[in-house]
């Protein structure tokens, strides 16, 4: 009954979204205010409706209505309440509904703003948002319906919304439960963050399409969506970092990024999104690159849809991917439709996007921004090709191939290095005019210090070329960025007489985007420190030791003290070892690596014992190659130098993005 209600509301929402598209198009073409208003109201109405439906599903999850196939597949009696609720996005059908919910929320938020100055954009923004919303709702209604129930028929069990002839309702007494690997705090926020990022990128895209259709190809659409883009970028970045953190904490392979196709599918819109963030600044400052910016946002939106398609359609098999589903063809049709229509629009409006001012110098800031874009596109091509190629190879040669980390690391390392170099040089270049001399004059001092840092590291015994160059570049970026803070603060301090720090604060407050951006750059190189540490210096060892025995790695000694086995809440059997960590003779503490075995799914989960410091992590996991007991247990020990800088960097970039996006007091948008 309740499930029927939830489904009915979704159907209503879908019809409303379609209605919204129709009236918006009518309103735009017939220049009818009524039409546009009607479309706007319809769009606003979708949000409370979807909210009702989503809450219905949450209720059904919380009260364990296992006759619903979705509830059965993602919850079970042994799961605590908070997990049952967050299982809303634990499976394909629920997460699609969640996607629609977010889409409706953001579209409503956009339609709620004041539209007086940009009346002509409104209908088209609604069209794009509603079409996207309708698409995801269609997926939910026709293919992945979370409200479908189990029925017992003559030929077996079948899941359907409405009762098939001669079937009876099945009510299992327990559900399958969420994959234990997903029952972790990191995994709970990681999908919503990613979806927030994906969905928020739809808004700038909608405005871009509106600009193309209405011919208002100046940078008005960029100014209107500037904050959306930043926020979308923030969520997407956070989603990626949270995924990395979860992998590090729970998956037990001592790493955080495996270059898995689904990871890359989420990474690709981030790449174009970052390129877009930079190049829109050129359009705002110098009126250039309009065509390129349109292309970038179209690419970002289509990569979002494409990434979602890859993850969910079963085309790619991956540890991340959802189970095979019938939504592939509809997704494919939607991708085709959006790609073709956006590109056609762009080609149609190509001439209207010509720049008003052209570039003066190859070392000017806009030129360097363009270089930045080229590098990001380079990484994008590596990623995209690496993901698509196995599909092509399988079609042509019938052989499956794996494109894995060695390929990606080798190809992207120099590109990322060049990007770091740019982060160190570009803040010193000027808009419009910059020559070798002016740039050189600004850069040589920090470059010298950075080189000294490199020499210092070399002298300290590290001879790895990648590390030397990498850390040198990190130093360069930090020096240059701090210098920019200092220079700006000093300038204001001199002119206003304020205390330096107050001057800096006020200055940053008035130039949030710039100084927020600098902070984000610093955060990126902090993360680079962590990445370099792991890539270049990670070591590992594995061995079976008896109780009292020990393993040695990187100057640490890990001694096996004891092991215990017991049942724990949440339907699992826990094998928990206690190891003590020594550096030389100094006792550093105990770690508790453990293996959980979940009874109902038969799935194991490895939780490491980790000792974290700024300098490194000592990461110990229990391995089950041999049976684990006091007689002998197998441990794998990873030494992960500098890895925590990755997480520190991510905290800084949250702060930096918030600073950059914080609304300014002056009237801007």
């Amino acid at each position, binding site marked *: 009954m309740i499930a029927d209600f939830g489904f009915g509301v979704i159907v209503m929402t879908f019809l409303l979204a379609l209605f919204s598209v129709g009236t918006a198009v009518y309103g735009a073409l017939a220049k009818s205010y009524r039409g546009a208003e009607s479309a706007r109201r319809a769009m606003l109405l979708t949000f409370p409706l979807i909210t009702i439906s989503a809450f219905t599903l949450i209720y059904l999850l919380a009260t364990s209505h296992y006759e619903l196939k979705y509830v059965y597949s993602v919850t079970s009696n042994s799961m605590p309440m908070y997990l049952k609720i967050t299982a809303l996005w634990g499976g394909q059908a629920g997460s699609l509904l969640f996607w629609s919910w977010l889409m409706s929320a953001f579209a409503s938020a956009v339609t709620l703003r004041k539209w007086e100055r940009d009346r002509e954009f409104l209908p088209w923004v609604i069209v794009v948002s509603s079409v996207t919303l309708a698409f995801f709702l269609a997926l939910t209604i026709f293919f992945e319906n979370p409200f479908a129930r189990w029925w017992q028929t003559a030929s077996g069990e079948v899941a359907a919304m409405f009762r098939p002839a001669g079937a009876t309702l099945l009510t299992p007494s327990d559900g399958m439960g969420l994959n234990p690997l997903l029952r972790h705090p990191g995994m709970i926020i990681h999908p919503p963050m990613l979806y927030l990022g994906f969905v928020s990128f739809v808004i700038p895209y909608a405005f871009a399409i509106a600009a193309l259709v209405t011919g208002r190809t100046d940078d008005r659409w960029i100014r209107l969506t500037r904050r959306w883009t930043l926020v979308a970028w923030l969520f997407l970045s956070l989603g990626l970092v949270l995924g990395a953190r979860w992998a590090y904490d729970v998956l037990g392979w001592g790493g955080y990024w495996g270059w898995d196709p689904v990871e890359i599918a989420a990474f690709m819109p981030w790449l174009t999104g970052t390129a877009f963030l930079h190049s829109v600044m050129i359009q705002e400052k110098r009126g250039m690159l309009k065509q390129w910016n349109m292309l970038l946002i179209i690419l970002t939106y289509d990569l979002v849809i494409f990434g979602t398609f890859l993850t969910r359609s079963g085309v790619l098999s991956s540890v991340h991917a959802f189970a095979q589903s019938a939504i*592939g063809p509809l997704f494919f049709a939607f991708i085709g439709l959006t790609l073709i229509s956006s590109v056609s629009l762009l080609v149609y409006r190509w001439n209207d996007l010509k720049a*008003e001012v*052209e570039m003066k110098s190859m070392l000017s800031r806009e030129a360097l921004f363009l270089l930045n874009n080229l590098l990001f596109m380079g990484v994008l091509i590596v990623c995209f090709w690496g993901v698509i190629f196995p599909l092509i190879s399988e079609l042509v040669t019938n052989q499956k191939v794996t494109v894995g980390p060695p390929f990606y690391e080798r190809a992207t390392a120099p590109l990322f290095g060049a990007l770091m170099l740019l982060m160190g040089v570009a803040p010193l270049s000027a808009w419009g005019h910059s020559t070798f001399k002016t740039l050189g004059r600004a850069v040589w001092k920090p470059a010298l210090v950075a080189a000294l840092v490199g020499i210092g590291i070399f002298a300290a015994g590290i001879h790895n070329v990648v590390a030397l160059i990498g850390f040198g570049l990190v130093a360069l970026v930090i020096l240059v960025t701090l210098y920019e803070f200092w220079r700006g603060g000093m300038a204001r301090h001199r002119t206003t007489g304020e205390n330096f720090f107050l001057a800096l604060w006020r200055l940053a407050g008035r130039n949030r985007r710039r100084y927020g951006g600098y902070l984000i750059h610093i955060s990126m190189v902090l993360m680079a420190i962590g990445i370099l540490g792991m890539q270049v210096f990670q070591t590992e060892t594995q061995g079976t030791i008896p109780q009292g025995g020990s393993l040695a790695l990187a100057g640490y000694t890990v001694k096996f003290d004891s092991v215990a086995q017991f049942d724990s809440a949440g339907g699992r059997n826990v094998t928990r070892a206690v190891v003590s960590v020594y550096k030389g003779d100094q006792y550093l503490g105990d770690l508790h690596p453990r293996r959980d075995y979940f009874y109902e799914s038969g799935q194991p989960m490895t939780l490491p014992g980790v000792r974290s410091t700024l300098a490194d992590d000592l990461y110990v996991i229990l391995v089950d190659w041999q049976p684990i007991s006091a007689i002998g247990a197998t441990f794998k020990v990873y030494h992960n130098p500098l890895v925590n800088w990755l997480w520190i960097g991510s905290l800084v970039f949250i702060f930096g993005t918030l600073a950059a996006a914080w609304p300014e007091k002056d009237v801007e948008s």
Partner: protein
Amino acid sequence: MSENVNNAIRPPKHPVPLWAQILVWVGLLGLLAVLALALKRSQQGVVRVGDTVKDFTLTAFGDDQHPDGQQIRLSDLHGKVVVINFWASWCKPCEQEAPDLEAAWRSYQSGGEVVFLGVDYVDTEPEARSYIAKFDITYPNGPDLGTRISQAFNRQMGVPETYIVDRQGKLRYIQIGPFQSVAEIQAIINPLLVEK
């Protein structure tokens, strides 16, 4: 907003050059084609009841009679009911059904109308041989080299899975997971035996 330094000279307006348009559209359509084909393949990967099963050759594990392994072609078995069982030595549920499968085989062996084939999915030979010996399996078993055979049945193959093919070479029954009893197996095969 944007500076208008000089109105007199404007950059000449070109539409998108032809070579660029062609490149973009070819690239786009090519990508869509690849995705469409990949999608079709992933959907097709599951062979459905009623489809004609694609022919394959199973190279059985070598024994005294056939040291290099007997080559068994599915098409050679046309006219008989064929039971194709995918298993692996590391698969616990497979052990559950192994005695039942062997017992069912023995019940049909004398009639000569039913053939049982065991396809060892992504396994190692020594362990596979121990498994065969443990359950005293007498019907032919062979490794699925390069996973080529299983790919034709189910791209997301799990074990155990059993595919029962009728005398005409059409797939008539798919069993995902282990059989529960000999009777269950016989109940599926017997109707197929009656058919021509």
